[in-house]
């Protein structure tokens, strides 16, 4: 879908800013919104660029810099923390050779920490794109990452 088509779906109202940002981000192969995107939204709605940037930069799930094809969101809230999310984090860092907030050079993975994913019953948990993975162990994480790397997921 083209950007204009996304814009025309929405009324020119301020409350649609976040939704258009979400859609623009999903459209971008690198999972982020560009300066041009934000300017486009500002012009369409009829508000200053700074307002759009203000909204975009406030929310952690909207990114203003390029990210990988797959976004790994590791939950590090207390239930997951208690059940060993830090060990899982170490494995991911080791496998992908990146730190939290970074993207692999081949632009396949971005590693982020997230607030509670609400699947605490099977902690520790991570989400890759829209898929949730629970009861993680180092072995299981390696297997999942390999599947993504090989493109079988």
């Amino acid at each position, binding site marked *: 879908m083209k950007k204009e088509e996304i814009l025309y779906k929405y009324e020119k*109202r*301020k*409350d*649609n*800013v*976040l*939704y258009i*940002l*979400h859609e623009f981000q999903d459209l971008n192969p690198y999972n982020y919104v560009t300066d041009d995107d934000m300017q486009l939204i500002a012009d369409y709605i009829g508000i200053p660029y700074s*307002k759009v940037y*203000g*909204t975009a930069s*406030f*929310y*952690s*799930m*909207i990114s203003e810099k390029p990210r990988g094809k797959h976004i790994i*969101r590791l939950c590090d*809230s*207390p*239930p997951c*923390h*208690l*059940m060993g999310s830090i060990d899982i984090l170490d494995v991911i860092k080791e496998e992908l050779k990146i730190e939290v907030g970074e993207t692999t050079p081949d632009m396949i993975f971005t590693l982020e920490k*997230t*607030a*509670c*994913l*609400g*699947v*605490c*019953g*099977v*902690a520790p*948990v991570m*989400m890759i794109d*829209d898929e*949730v*993975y*629970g*009861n993680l162990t180092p072995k299981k994480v390696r297997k999942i990452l390999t599947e993504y790397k090989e493109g079988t997921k």
Partner: protein
Amino acid sequence: MAQRLNVLVCSGASCLSSGSIEIKKKMLEEIKKAGLEDEIRIIETGCMGPCELGPVILVYPDEILYKKVKKKDVEEIVENHFLKGRPVERLLYKSPETEKLIKKHEEIDYFKKQKKIVLRNCGMIDPESLEEYVALDGYEALGKALTEMSRDEVLKEIETSGLRGRGGAGFPTHLKWKFTKDAEGDQKFVVCNADEGDPGAFMDRSVVEGDPHTVLEGMAIAGYVVGASKGYIYVRAEYPLAIERLRKAIKDAKEYGFLGENIFDSGFDFDLEVRIGAGAFVCGEETALIHSIEGKRGTPRPRPPYPSISGLWEKPTNLNNVETYANVRHIILKGGDWFASIGTESSKGTKVFALSGDIQNTGLAEVPMGTTINELIYDIGGGAPEGKEIKAVQLGGPSGGCITKEYFDTPIDYESLTELGAMMGSGGVIAMSQDTCMVNTAKFFLDFNTFESCGKCTPCRVGLKQMYKMLDKITKGEGEKGDIDKLVELGESIKKTALCGLGQTAPNPVLSTIKYFRNEYRQHIENKKCSAMVCTDLLTYTIDPDKCKACTLCAQNCPVDCIDGERGVVHEIREDECIKCGNCYDVCPFDAVIKTTGELE
């Protein structure tokens, strides 16, 4: 023709993450192979509750529950149970005490003490089927309210019920509705807070994913009472399945005329829309949530005016939590008196709790208010995993506090928990064992709150950071005498001066752990000791020369090469260079590496 068996496959987020969809696919194949397509129906349901046992399958009409089902078990279930009528015993639940097999799901301890109102349909129906919802009295309450009751009569019923906000603060629901109803405005709104962000709380997710129409119906009834024709459900973007289910539910309800114009020919119009967050915890605060729906940065504003008077686009807005709305239809159908007969003097009805952490049966449990913490974590939760003992539970997430063993016989209601320095919050219960360091836990919650602080007011933005620094010092063994008092003083002033609920409650995890575990803080500061062996800076690794076989394994695995010794020569750790990673401790096959904490006495 009615099917002989209904097979309910739990597709709550937890079971999904452990492969319930694969199991369902496999089961469809096997059933087809066995030629049973016409006799057996498979239904994907929302969360059934016992996440620990997942993936869970429930077979009706026998009510047989299979736990921890794997793809390879499916063939056996179909062959032996569905075809030959012999349930597969090895997949049934076994009572941990009596070792007896329990076939019927309602006889399992986890379910026995529960009373399901909010979760009644969760795990029982296909959440994507409006027909199934209607078959279980769905939208009957809305019909009754619109066609048989006046707005005041509905309000009266809610008042009689004693329902209070389930989002945490426990404000009487009927008062909120009344304020919005009485407020002046050409347009009013009803908003549902489904921005469940409290770590360890997942009941709203389960209700929305497992029984979305319940929430819609509650909101429509609220809309009728307050005089709103439009409503919004604000959901976190972290819950994609919830968003999808809600959108479908709204679409279906509109098609059937349960939402939209002139509902039940009553002249009442009500339309609903889903709004999505984007990862900001503070948006669970009502004024921040409203800003976020308006497309702005999700920062809170001072109250009053409360949203009931001036909310979304400055219009009167009734804002309740998912679980609150989910209670409404039952109150209308069964009456306020019925609801008020459940619970305690001040807190009526049930509350859904999410059990997680160091506890055997993680998952969701709905119990009458007044149930004790003991019943919740031992009778339902099954206590700590083997070899551990629960020393405290954290209630109310990062805004709440901990409660220690001595108080586990306290009946749970809003007041009793607040008195103990915790709070109901959204109902997340995180169990902690002796392996949990309370100072580190407090630091952890504070780190969360500091990160999520929106930065608008100084006490929260700056104060929390200072508290965090102090705690960090303490966990690193650099704590000084007087730090505890400073933490209390700063915490108390943040509570009094912060702008919104997040800031005002953010110091709670620290204050309550100081209240109940001051000794652990003292040990960290005075003896540089962490008895839970969690704070790495306070640990010392040494090698027991009598046990060391000089195999060099530890030295090979030391990332900083601080272990001296070679084959035949007993090893020694150079303490000043040790980074306390614990590798040597983990790899030593002879248990020669000793982990200690605290200054040697």
